[in-house]
């Protein structure tokens, strides 16, 4: 990535912005992955 940062503010805004996007992706992907792991398990009654 050739982005040039002139201030720490620029750097933090950029890297944190990307980090939040990555985190959002992970928060969506991990529950889906959990469903993939468990969807063939026998359903347990919880009531």
């Amino acid at each position, binding site marked *: 990535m050739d982005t040039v940062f002139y201030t720490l503010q620029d750097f933090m805004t*950029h890297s944190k912005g990307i980090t939040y996007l990555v985190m959002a992706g992970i928060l969506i992907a*991990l529950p889906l*992955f959990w469903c993939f*792991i468990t*969807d063939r398990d026998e359903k347990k009654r919880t009531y």
Partner: protein
Amino acid sequence: MSEETTLTDKKIFTPFNIICGIIIVVGLILTILRFTKGLGAVTNLDHNNPWGIWIGFDLLCGVALAAGGFVTSAACYIFGLKRFHSAVRPAILTAFLGYAMVVLALNYDVGRPWRLPYPIFYSQGTTSLLFEVGLCVFLYISVLFVEYSPAALEWLGFKKIRNLIVRMTLVLTIFGVILSTLHQSSLGALFMIAPSKLHPLWYSEYLPIYFFISSIFAGLSMVIFEGSLAHRFLHHKMDETHLAESTGVALGFAKAASFLMMGYAGIKLIGIAIDNHWHYLATSWGQWYLLEIIGFVMLPAYLYALAAREKNLILARWASVVAVLGIVLNRLNISVIAFNWNLPSAQRYFPSWMEIATSIFIITIGVVAYRFIATYMPILYKHPDYQEHQ
């Protein structure tokens, strides 16, 4: 379990015994060389590379792979997953022997074994992470010894003291979890003092978290891997309960390890994003890093997930081999391969054959000890006098 396998009707010169014997003889010769001629006689260590594979492999990998002890006992006694109960004793034994081998290997690296208790009892460096690691390992190996001791006491017939220790199981488990959390993460934190030496892809302010989380799935993988070896070579020592529960243990642990490993890959990605180190991924170091993350974290995580979905025990066992190799690769990357990455290649460290042979010697001692204990003590089966006890 069959009772007919006793020492007397076994052959002494089996391939296992011959190979182990040769390794132990070579190891003893190297031990004499190390402690009489010094580090320079047997290692390629120097001032640029004071830590070699005795730290990177024997200690860091040994501690991570021995995490199965606290993970299994926490699952069983703290989280109440009693279906994993039959895996607790083998896991505790593996952890105890793993830590014992770590301490043995540490003696080879630091020398003067009689001074090993000094940092604990004589000269405490309370501002040092190494002191915290040393203290935790000292305390945790004591806890593991006590946790393992009921098996030895049942074998020896000391009922009263065995029953007393069994009553302390929950307290010991809680101690084990606390001490493991502390020193597993501190081992990662050790490398935070070397930001200029460790490659930026592996260096992160989250190193303690990476080390702790990776130790959990390393422990889970090691329990599955060790269970598959026990099934292959010590099948006759297992009782009905152990045999009946082993598939559930492997698939349950595979499910947990799979989710953890994907989460771990996710936080590694966050580490790169927060430091904005994306550009390093396009270099040859980046390809090596991606091989570690995709090939040895995400691939076994996917294989574990498939194994848990399909109830495929064989796949779970193969995935555990890849996961264990991945942990070894990660610890070696951080401590040896990506450490001092910017030095000229002539000044880089590569272990001597004697260092590698000493590591193999130490692992062999652990394997022989495990085999002896699992053969004679109630590790893979319940002692007939204590069937109703935990």
